[in-house]
């Protein structure tokens, strides 16, 4: 993982982020707004498998409604997340390597699981299999968010 941390940490982006007083907070604000949008759309979709929230719509209808917002949220969170990581990569490598690796792993699992398992189950209105899948999905997404937030308290 060392070359990975070095690549981002030593990049022009990382350099620029560390030299600016406002870049880090600004990207963090963007990242947090993306988080609200992302977990809001994920929560509404997943809760529907349990008959909670927007229950007048089927889960396939909600998958259609919220897909563009989940995508937009990822398009906000991934670039801003890269910028935040580039800024802190040297510190993270020295102080909380594992915390960051865990976060990256959980985000990767959450995205893959969402698009390969959860969305197909939602599109076919499969509530029986959807319940355990949604429980797992929520666990991984919120786990990723908590792992990310713990990096903030470094």
């Amino acid at each position, binding site marked *: 993982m060392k070359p990975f941390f070095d690549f981002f940490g030593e990049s022009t982006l990382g350099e620029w982020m560390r030299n600016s007083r406002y870049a880090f907070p600004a990207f963090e*604000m963007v990242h*947090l707004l993306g*988080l*609200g949008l*992302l977990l809001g759309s994920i929560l*509404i979709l997943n809760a529907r498998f349990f008959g909670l*929230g*927007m229950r*007048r719509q089927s889960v396939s209808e909600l998958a259609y409604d919220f897909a563009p*917002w989940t995508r937009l949220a990822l398009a906000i969170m991934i670039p801003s997340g890269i910028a935040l990581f580039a800024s802190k990569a040297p510190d993270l490598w020295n102080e909380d390597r594992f915390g960051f690796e865990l976060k990256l792993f959980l985000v990767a699992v959450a995205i893959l699981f969402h698009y390969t398992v959860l969305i197909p189950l939602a599109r076919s209105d499969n509530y029986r299999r959807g319940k355990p899948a949604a429980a797992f999905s929520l666990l991984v997404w919120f786990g990723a968010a908590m792992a990310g937030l713990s990096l903030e308290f470094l």
Partner: protein
Amino acid sequence: MILSWCEWLMETWVSAGIRESIWVYPMLHWAHILSNTLMFGTIIFLDLRLVGLGLSRRRVSDVAEQLLPWTWLGWILMFTSGALIFTSDPVRYYSSFFLRIKMILMFLAGFNALVFHFTVYRGVALWDDGRAPILARMSGAISLISWIAIVITGRAVGYFD
């Protein structure tokens, strides 16, 4: 007057307890940010529907009635965790410029929601399926902008005096 109350609050055991604990303070921040996904993450979808940017196939009343209980739950969690964070260091937070701006924005968002519910939303049956009338669209836009600004100023409280 408020400042002396903040000074009194700072001397209480609750304030000292949160300040001196190494894990309560980070936990409160976690709770505050995670419950924001409940509150901000649901209210924006009603706002987006009103403005005409999203969920166009859903009725406005379906979105409002089904999501607002989640928004309220999120609001209660946010208020509780936010009040406890404030309690941990009231004198510092009292003098925070961004927290004052954030409070003004909260009143604006609350007032806007109140006006919306007691005026234009009363006649929602007339425009439930399609495009919302101008007053409802304006209300959605004000809400969207103020909540985004509340998240931004909230984060700024932690960085700048």
